[in-house]
């Protein structure tokens, strides 16, 4: 943009890093497809494995969709910093003059756009398949939208801590799951309470509070975790 090298802002590097990660995702399309396909396959196995009856599925739907969405986010969060760690880009990010806080937010948001966002957008389709009552569809999308962003940020903490380890699968789940559960509880209860005729504003407000907390605090934890991992 500008010829003056000093006028460069943190926002520019935020945008640039976000664009880079989106570009990388579109070069490796399986990164986008994997969590979404996992989500769709697992949910569509429930009518086959449990029962195809309308009443049973309608009862299970909010919980099943939320649990599988959570697992899709959990499985994908392992790769959040892996690639950058392996090729040395992570060192460049840590040593750049830009605040790590901003760079981490860019990376996590890009990651959410290729994992949480598609899951959120496809959830109504699976809701219909699971006979979720129509009034539950909007709360499902709303709660997944707020919830999956929090899940991505929280997953980032685990990913940052375990990126230096070769096999981090189980450890990552153990670190992250206790922090995931409140999101799951309020998320699925938002959908259930609308189906039962109560509003969901309370649950959505709590999810919003989680989101704000995750966006403001998790990047600090992720940054510290990355510094520890790179040191190893």
């Amino acid at each position: 943009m500008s010829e003056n090298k000093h006028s460069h802002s943190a926002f520019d590097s935020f945008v640039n890093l976000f664009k880079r990660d989106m570009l990388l995702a579109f070069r490796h399309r399986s990164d986008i497809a994997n969590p979404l396909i996992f989500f769709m396959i697992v949910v569509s196995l429930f009518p086959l494995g449990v029962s195809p009856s309308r009443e049973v599925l309608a009862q299970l739907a909010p919980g099943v969709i939320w649990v599988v969405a959570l697992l899709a986010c959990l499985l994908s969060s392992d790769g959040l910093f892996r690639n950058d760690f392996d090729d040395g880009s992570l060192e460049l990010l840590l040593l750049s003059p830009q605040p790590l806080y901003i760079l981490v937010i860019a990376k996590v948001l890009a990651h959410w756009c290729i994992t949480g966002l598609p899951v959120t957008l496809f959830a109504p389709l699976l809701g219909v398949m699971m006979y979720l009552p129509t009034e539950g569809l909007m709360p499902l999308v709303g709660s997944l939208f707020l919830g999956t962003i929090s899940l991505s940020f929280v997953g980032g903490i685990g990913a940052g801590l375990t990126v230096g380890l070769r096999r981090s699968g189980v450890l990552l789940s153990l670190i992250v799951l206790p922090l995931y559960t409140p999101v799951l509880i309020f998320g699925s209860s938002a959908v259930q309470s609308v189906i039962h005729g109560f509003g969901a504003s309370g649950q959505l407000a709590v999810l919003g509070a989680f989101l704000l907390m995750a966006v403001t605090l998790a990047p600090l934890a992720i940054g510290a975790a990355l510094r520890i991992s790179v040191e190893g």
Partner: protein
Amino acid sequence: MTETLLEIKNLRCEREERVLFDQLCFSVDAGQVLQIEGPNGSGKTTLLRIISGLSSAYEGDIYWRGQPIRKVRTDFYHDLHYLGHLPGVKAALTPRENLRWSCALEAEDSDAQIEEALDKVDLYGFEDLPCFTLSAGQQRRVAIARLYLTATPFWILDEPFTAIDLRGVAELEAMLAERAERGGTVILTTHHQLDMPGRLKKVNLGGEAQ
């Protein structure tokens, strides 16, 4: 005129119960090229990582422009360009895209500047091919191209000549010499014999490691 940029006092680093270096003292002035020598495993890369702040497993003091480096970390990063053991080149992106994201961390460079830098490292004609189709040396050259784009006064280069052909080595050496002439400072590790009379300073880790 010569300002002492970096000063290291009594640095000690232990790794896996082995002392890599102890009582290490040296300083680097503006316009100097400091070559860190030593056999494999003597702690050259570790020393560079300690100076750059990637590792804090050390005892001793490091001063940046006279201040303890821990206190002026952000100022230091504004002046630093680091080329590590791993080049930080994304295999799925083209050289042009790689330079665009990494240089955006320091300053906004125009496409013309990026093209010029790629031309200087002989990657003209390769700028739009994904990096995984390039050879190891060419990928390394993408990281070297960043040196032509950066305006920072202080460089830390870990084995910059690895996988680069003879002509590339000569060009890079000339560039470092020219940079030092204009007041730039470089700390690098290499087994290559550098020829920069008057500017070159050497630190040997081999002696201390034994």
